[in-house]
């Protein structure tokens, strides 16, 4: 079976593309899928540190494209998850080192032996973005519930449609349920009204993401992390399962704490 190539992009930087790519990659591997996480953010390599694989890099994607090594030599195996591979970006080159046709060929070489190729796109709507969506069968847009991120996501929705890669699906990342309840943050429904595309996941703001990234252990590996659960649910939806969307409640206040006492798992799954 041939792999599905899914590009993860956003327009605006800093909304959580790399974190999403790493965690969804881990979660798909936990489902037993053979996954390659491909860092297409040439010059600003980060997928390696988020996955905790930075010390094992010998070759990168530009080495493969320029023929300095074979594809297999550049793929880094995750010891925690034998099904998960990383193809790192080059840190010493820039976006011009990888052309769309190069990435299309690379993905075609990866397709036969894997189930998913997840491409972590560069931010922006320029060359890096265009290269990253060239090989995509599907595109996932990550946004945050705030005006600048949603505006940029809308631009990207249009560009993806124009490139005939649509319709893209949406991940709302870093949602703060308490702020939404207080009327001080856009809710997922607001974002969907505005962008008019399908949702594939809602990830709550969660300290465990920062903490696990500090250690190089993606939150998707943490059974109790609310964000980790959200990422695992995204993986199941990508895999074709019908998983209902999470509803998050604020658990910071007094009533939240009481509610948590009475709930067995402590988290909404």
């Amino acid at each position, binding site marked *: 079976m041939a792999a599905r190539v899914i590009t993860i992009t956003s327009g605006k930087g800093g909304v959580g593309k790399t974190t999403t790519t790493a965690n969804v990659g881990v979660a798909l591997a936990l489902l037993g899928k053979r996954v390659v996480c491909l860092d297409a953010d040439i010059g600003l390599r980060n997928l390696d540190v988020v996955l905790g694989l930075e010390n094992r890099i010998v070759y990168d994607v530009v080495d493969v494209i320029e023929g300095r090594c074979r594809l297999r030599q550049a793929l880094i195996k995750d010891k925690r998850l034998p099904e998960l591979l990383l193809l790192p970006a080059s840190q010493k080159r820039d976006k011009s080192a990888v052309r769309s046709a190069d990435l299309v060929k690379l993905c075609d070489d990866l397709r036969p032996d894997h189930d998913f190729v997840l491409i972590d796109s560069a931010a922006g709507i320029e060359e890096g973005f265009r290269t990253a969506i060239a090989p995509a069968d599907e595109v996932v847009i990550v946004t945050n519930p705030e*005006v600048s991120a*949603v505006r940029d996501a*809308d631009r990207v929705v*249009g560009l993806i449609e124009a490139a005939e890669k649509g319709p893209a699906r949406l991940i709302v990342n870093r949602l703060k349920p308490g702020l939404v309840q207080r*009327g*001080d*943050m*856009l809710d997922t429904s*607001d974002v969907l009204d*505005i962008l008019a595309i399908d949702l594939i996941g809602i990830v709550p703001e969660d300290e465990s993401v920062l903490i696990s990234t500090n250690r190089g252990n993606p939150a998707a590996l943490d059974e109790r992390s609310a964000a980790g659960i959200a990422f695992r649910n995204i993986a199941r939806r990508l895999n074709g399962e019908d998983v209902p969307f999470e509803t998050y409640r604020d658990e910071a206040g007094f009533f939240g704490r009481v509610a948590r006492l009475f709930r067995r798992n402590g988290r909404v799954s």
Partner: protein
Amino acid sequence: MSLTDFWNRLRGQPQPSSREAAKQRLQLVLVHDRNQIEPGMLERIKDEIIAVISKHVEIDQAGVQVTFTRGERENRLVADIPLLTRRTRK
């Protein structure tokens, strides 16, 4: 309208929540983004329409509105130009 907005309205505070403000501002700015027309350009178009039409008919210049409407298939630029008829003329 969220519960917070409803509550604010009950207490006589007309200001919408920041969530509602964010949504409204986004919807407005995206109409311009998607149609690639700056908001200021719309004002300019309006002034030019007023100038052209005023040459031929009398219109209520203050009542002229030029807006975008979103249809299912396409967006429209709609100019609403109130005419001054003999009855409305003072």
